[in-house]
């Protein structure tokens, strides 16, 4: 409720921006891109070997890219849109209003970019950020190892110094889309003698480097979004280390906050038809138009309450961060809740779908899209830090409980 002139001017500018943005989106977002992607092939991930799934997908991506709006809040010099926090919020709200999907999905945008902006040197930012923004390079994340899951800092992939290079040997697991990725951001041990958090470095390298191999892992969903990734003497210039050598854990943790924020977003997808109406397709409705399964209806309504509340909390988390009032560990809180909520969503969808949701292979079921998605969600509360690890972080870092 400030009445200062500058605040009024800012509000007026923001309203102008909103109107312009709305008009631009209306003119430029193809109708096909105004509904959620129905399967993974329908999502554009970019990269050297990428192909567009459809013409509207290409058009939408290119128009947004040309405005810098694949990464609206990154600085313009790195290919971003240079929007202020308030403008970015307006853009997101306007996109949500018409159901516009993100033009580009990318671990480069969600995870590596923020870490590079904070910890990268100028040369690294200039080299990598514009290619992420333009969807030219697709990234994957080399974090977990067979013996370093929840206890990530015990990772053993080693990088040995050899002149101007490191020689990297070891293996990673659960590397999402490693078989499609062009580059990897990877945690490696550069000092075997140091305490486990202190000898880790954060390094970038090309997946076509000699000695890199990937092997997809077949999951319960029947898909293979994750890989095992092997490094056999991979030679990487030392200049590819982000931040300080042996201080990679700082970068890793910072990036994890962004990863958790990204995964928590899965719990709040206010686009598309309300869950209750989706359920009505299979369950039917009574004379008053109420879902003809009162127990299921109650579960859906409770879910809707929690989903709307989580959406408000996600919005508030962004606002708090912008106001400098956010707790750095809050993304763990959101990650825990968002993933558990997404699992609830799919349990409801399976229950609502009944027998129809059990078909695994048919045109009618789009090759079992729903049961496969349901099974995929079970990983949400494991990947990027399990629910139990998240609750431990909240207990220790936010609540300051003893001995956690």
């Amino acid at each position, binding site marked *: 409720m400030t009445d200062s002139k500058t605040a009024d001017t800012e509000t007026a500018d923001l309203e102008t921006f909103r109107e312009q943005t709305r008009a631009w989106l209306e003119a430029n977002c193809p109708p096909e891109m105004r509904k959620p992607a129905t399967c993974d092939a329908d999502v554009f991930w970019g990269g050297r070997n990428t192909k567009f799934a459809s013409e509207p997908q290409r058009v939408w991506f290119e128009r947004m890219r040309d405005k810098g709006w694949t990464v609206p809040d990154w600085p313009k010099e790195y290919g971003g849109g240079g929007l202020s926090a308030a403008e970015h919020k307006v853009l997101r709200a306007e996109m949500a209003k018409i159901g516009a999907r993100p033009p580009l999905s990318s671990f480069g945008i969600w995870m590596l970019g923020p870490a590079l902006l904070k910890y990268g040197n100028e040369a690294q930012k200039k080299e990598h950020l514009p290619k992420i923004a333009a969807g030219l390079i697709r990234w994957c994340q080399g974090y977990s190892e067979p013996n370093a899951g929840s206890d990530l800092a015990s990772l053993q992939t080693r990088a040995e110094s050899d002149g101007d290079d490191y020689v990297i040997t070891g293996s990673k697991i659960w590397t999402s889309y490693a078989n499609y990725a062009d580059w990897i951001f990877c945690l490696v041990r550069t000092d075997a003698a140091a305490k486990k958090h202190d000898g880790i470095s954060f390094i970038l390298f090309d997946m076509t480097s000699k000695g890199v191999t990937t092997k997809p892992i077949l999951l319960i969903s029947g898909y293979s979004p994750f890989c095992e990734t092997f490094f056999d003497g991979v030679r990487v210039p030392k200049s590819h280390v982000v931040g300080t050598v042996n201080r990679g854990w700082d970068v890793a943790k910072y990036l994890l906050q962004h990863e958790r924020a990204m995964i928590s977003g899965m719990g709040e997808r206010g686009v598309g038809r309300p869950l209750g109406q989706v359920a009505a397709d299979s369950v039917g409705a009574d004379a008053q138009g109420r879902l003809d399964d009162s127990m299921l209806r109650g579960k859906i309504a409770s879910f809707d309450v929690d989903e709307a*509340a989580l959406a408000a909390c996600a919005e508030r988390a962004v606002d708090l961060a912008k106001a400098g009032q956010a707790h750095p560990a809050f993304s763990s809180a959101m990650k825990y809740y968002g993933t558990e909520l997404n699992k609830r969503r799919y349990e409801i969808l399976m229950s609502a779908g009944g027998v129809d949701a059990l078909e695994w292979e048919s045109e009618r079921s789009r090759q079992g899209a729903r049961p496969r998605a349901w099974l995929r969600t079970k990983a949400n509360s494991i990947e990027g830090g399990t629910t139990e690890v998240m609750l431990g972080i909240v207990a220790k870092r936010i609540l300051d409980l003893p001995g956690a």
Partner: protein
Amino acid sequence: MALVLTEEQSMLRDSARGLISDKAPVSHLRQLRDAKDPTGFSKEFWHSFAEMGFAGLLVPEEFGGSGLGFVEAGIIMEEIGRTLMPSPFFATSVVAASALTRGGNAAQKSEYLPKISNGSLLATLAIDEGAKHRPLQTSLQAVRAGNGFKLSGAKALVVDGHVADLFIVAARTAGSAGERDGLTLFLVNPKAKGVAIERTIMVDAHNAARIELANVEVNADSVLGEVDQGAALLDGVLDIGRGAVASEMVGLSEEVFNRTIEYLKSRKQFGKLIGEFQALQHRAAELYVDIEITRAAVMKALQALDGDVAKAASAVAVAKARAGTTATRAVQEGVQMHGGMGMTDQFDIGFFMKRARVCEELFGDANYHTEQLARARGY
């Protein structure tokens, strides 16, 4: 609008918190309860509240109020929730003031609003009739008689009912229970002939009453808003009240949570602080997240009310439903984690549990509001 408090709002919160925690900590409620205080709140403190501009916080400046919004009212309610302070703020300054501001004609506004602002008039909405909050089920009858109406029927959970100077009574002038059309709000003098008031001592030791109207005569000037068309006005006023109660529940939840966390950090068993046990840590962490999410939902609802009361219904339903389940969880965990101490009257934690139960019923519980959301979404 950003879902964080502005600088002015933070200052308002700080001054309210300072005043309330200093003058009306939980022991204040305990004293009022133990003394069976006939008023049920501190009149002296209510006057300081008025002097601070809080009593007329929502009242437009032309009627002597502060002309602030629902986010600001929520800030005060949240602080009230932290110490469980009994105060006419909810019934008079939030609900009745909103009803008069939104529904009153010029004469009604200039008669009552300045008195609400200066703390000299207490007013309250009489809505519930059955055991549960069902506004459309209103069946208290108002029949035309001469130039006015005669009101007959009973109301329950009338907050501050035994001390109010003015009742705003929801009545049925047409149609039958369950219908939207035919509802009318009336301004009724509690001292009018035919009004019987029974103060009900509640589990939370806060003020409430049952009132009975037997052929109470009111003139045509006593209609607030339009005859038969009171539902829309009532919806808005109730939603404003719900946003306020939800804020109180956020304050209450957070306070009980903070007290519980302190207990986990000080109580030792098996040679350890009990806060070291992972079973308790994870439950505490879950509760923390619940409270944060609820706080955001409530703030969203208050901002929506500030934007346009008529369009805030779904956001309010989400907020009140969440506030109910979160407060219920917070007080249950609070008592459980305090162990045997949590069961004693001497410990304050039980006061929070009792108040949370009343707040949950006030203007619709979590089930009611979850149902409203389902209907709004068409399933």
